[in-house]
């Protein structure tokens, strides 16, 4: 996997993903604006919650992609041990977390989301894995010393 420009990849994924989920936000606002009953009725409360969560998580993850890309560029001494795993996990989380929420709102059972929501915990694990690995990379001695921060 040597030679892959992760920074470029995540910038691209981040901005396109932001475009997709910001558009979803616009669609949801339109559903409010036009008072679409399938979205706004009391019986659709679960759908409303699931799709709102899909929009929120998707948008936030897009920003995480961008932040990750900029971190790679701005902190070249960052000591990431498994960059391909981090990259894959972040992209997987971006698909599974909002996707799970979205599918959970397409078909649902009264107060319970549809089975698509099962994708969410998988996405959450991927996200946590990626975040943990990045956090660990930022804590390595090399990075901290370059930034002039003394380890306790």
């Amino acid at each position, binding site marked *: 996997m040597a030679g892959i420009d992760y920074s470029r990849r995540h910038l691209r994924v981040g901005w396109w993903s932001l475009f997709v989920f910001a558009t979803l936000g616009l669609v949801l606002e339109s559903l409010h604006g036009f008072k679409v009953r399938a979205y706004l009725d*009391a019986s659709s409360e679960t759908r409303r919650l699931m799709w709102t969560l899909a929009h929120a998580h998707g948008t936030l993850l897009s920003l995480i992609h961008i932040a990750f890309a900029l971190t790679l560029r701005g902190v070249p001494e960052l000591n990431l041990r498994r960059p391909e795993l981090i990259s894959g996990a972040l992209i997987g989380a971006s698909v599974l977390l909002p996707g799970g929420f979205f599918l959970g709102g397409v078909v649902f059972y009264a*107060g319970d989301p549809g089975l698509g929501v099962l994708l969410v915990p998988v996405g959450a694990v991927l996200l946590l894995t990626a975040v943990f690995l990045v956090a660990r990379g930022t804590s390595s001695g090399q990075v901290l010393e370059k930034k002039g921060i003394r380890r306790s």
Partner: protein
Amino acid sequence: MTLKNFSPRLLGTLAVLWLAVPAGLGWAFVHSRDGAIPENRAADRPIQIAANGYASSQPCKACHPSQYEAWHSSYHRTMTQLATPETVVASFDGVRVDDVPGRPMFLEQRGRELWADFDEPDWDGQGNAPPRIQRRVVMTTGSHHQQIYWYATGHGRLLGQLPAIRLIGEQRWIPRRAAVMHPPGGALISESGSWNAICVQCHTTLGKPEFSSPFGTAALASQTIDTKAVEFGISCEMCHGPGEEHARLNASPLRRYALHLRGGPDSTIVQPLRLNAQRSSEVCGQCHGLWEFYDKVGERAANTNGLPYRPGDELEKSRFVVQPTRNQSSPTMKMLLEDDPRFISDVFWSDGMVRATGREYNGLIESPCFKNATDEARKMSCASCHSMHQTADDRRPAHEWADDQLTPRAAASGGNETCLACHAQLGGTQLQNHTKHLAASPGSSCYNCHMPYTTYGLLKTIRSHQISNPSVQSTLETGRPNACNLCHLDKTLDWTAGYLAQWYGPARPPFGAMTDDDRSVAASLVSLLKGDAGQRAIIAQAMGWAPAQQISGTNWLPPYLAVLLDDPYDAVRLIAYRSLRSLPGFNGLAFDFVAPPDRRGAMQRRALELWRDTRRQQGRRTDPALLFTPEGSFIAEKVDRLVNQRNNRPVLWRE
């Protein structure tokens, strides 16, 4: 100074404070606004406590949001509420209420508390006048037509009732006695303790009176009263049964998804729509039916544990459903009639059809669509027409649905579609052949002919819930106005008998069965002038019913409605006034139905003057059946004769 000067621990502490202080202030603000006392600290009123396997409606919302929302919009939920500035429909902000017995009542809002200053309703007659008392209003009953207010008596959880009731439609206070069909001058029963002993059974979920000795057997002052309920108002568990186990088990997503994917019922909760018509209707009948305890033992047990009936049970296992056509000679009925000989006649017409509202289950079980149905799938139940949760395909605003909680099909186009689901042979082109009225006219509405407005309660009439055919014979035997003459107000009973015989075949009642009046005077006027207070109320409301006004004309109605403005019964006067105001030219007519007789007389004369004015523009009726001469004057002696024959039996309808 920069952040680097602070230790991480100090920074952490500051961050926690930064979050905690606004959160604490917000919590304090919200709770100071609410001002609610925790239930377990409220000592002067009944309290809500989940018990006996009941969990209250709170856990239901998470899994059943739309059902919860629909219930939340319903008047079932608000049947009993804690009195707060938000739940009371009347202002308490320095209000003086004159329409009470004795001296005026004064209402006051102190912070978020509601207070009333009034004459002691339970005055023992000692001294010159009842003492004044100041009491905190703690609870309300009703939010649809009327609202009743209950105050803390200071004796345990015992409640007393304010002497005035708020009439929501008229936006006015009325004396408590005027809110029910009650004989004029009759002694009023004290309402202290009524909520704890009676209202609690159906206006709360699993209410427990908890009197130390049965209500009515000992002086209230000597009693310990610890009334509780699972929840105020008629909430989820009233129809679905205790839900604690259901909520607990379904906290597991695995169980929920197994149920979703498998389909079918969850054995931990009752779904009334999955019960058969009998059991399903009994769920409603537990409150919308007239019942009594079989014996004192059952009554005593219910005092402590609440009523033993649970949705899905056989209703009559734990209570005696009073229905004279079925159990007139049973030992329990005999016992009830020994206690109160008018127990039946105050609630039922003489043929056993229920005549008081709130007892719709009694009407259902006597309906042929229920009792004669052999096919369970086609057997009528309450759910045939009513839906306790507004369905997703129902386009009506929630408040419109909440009015009668009808299904969209039952609410649409006169409800015919509901009946035609079984009686399909009468639909389409056959409808007109069956009804003998134009298909689009009110005369072709199933409801209008088979569920006429012959039941009374809450200061109005409602449709009978016993499906029946229009029958002159029944009118002659019971005095109950028939559907034909409730619309054709200007026609005689004889006229109706002729058409019914011609169209539907049954023989006309024998000649001797009808009086001269039945043959020559409009049936509505016979009931209005000669009938008892209940019959007068029914006719008075029919005179304000748009379809009846349309077919019978309106320019002859004012003098007769004006007669009722001086009726001895408050309820009849109010209904007559409402109908009078619906007539052309009478919208601005002022009338206070609880004013003293001399003032009412003046207002009655004003109504008659208005009629004379409008008659010039609208023309005169000269029908002898309406007791008018060919010149359009009253046949006064005939009117007087009928009024003199009025049935003055005391009418007290147990709503």
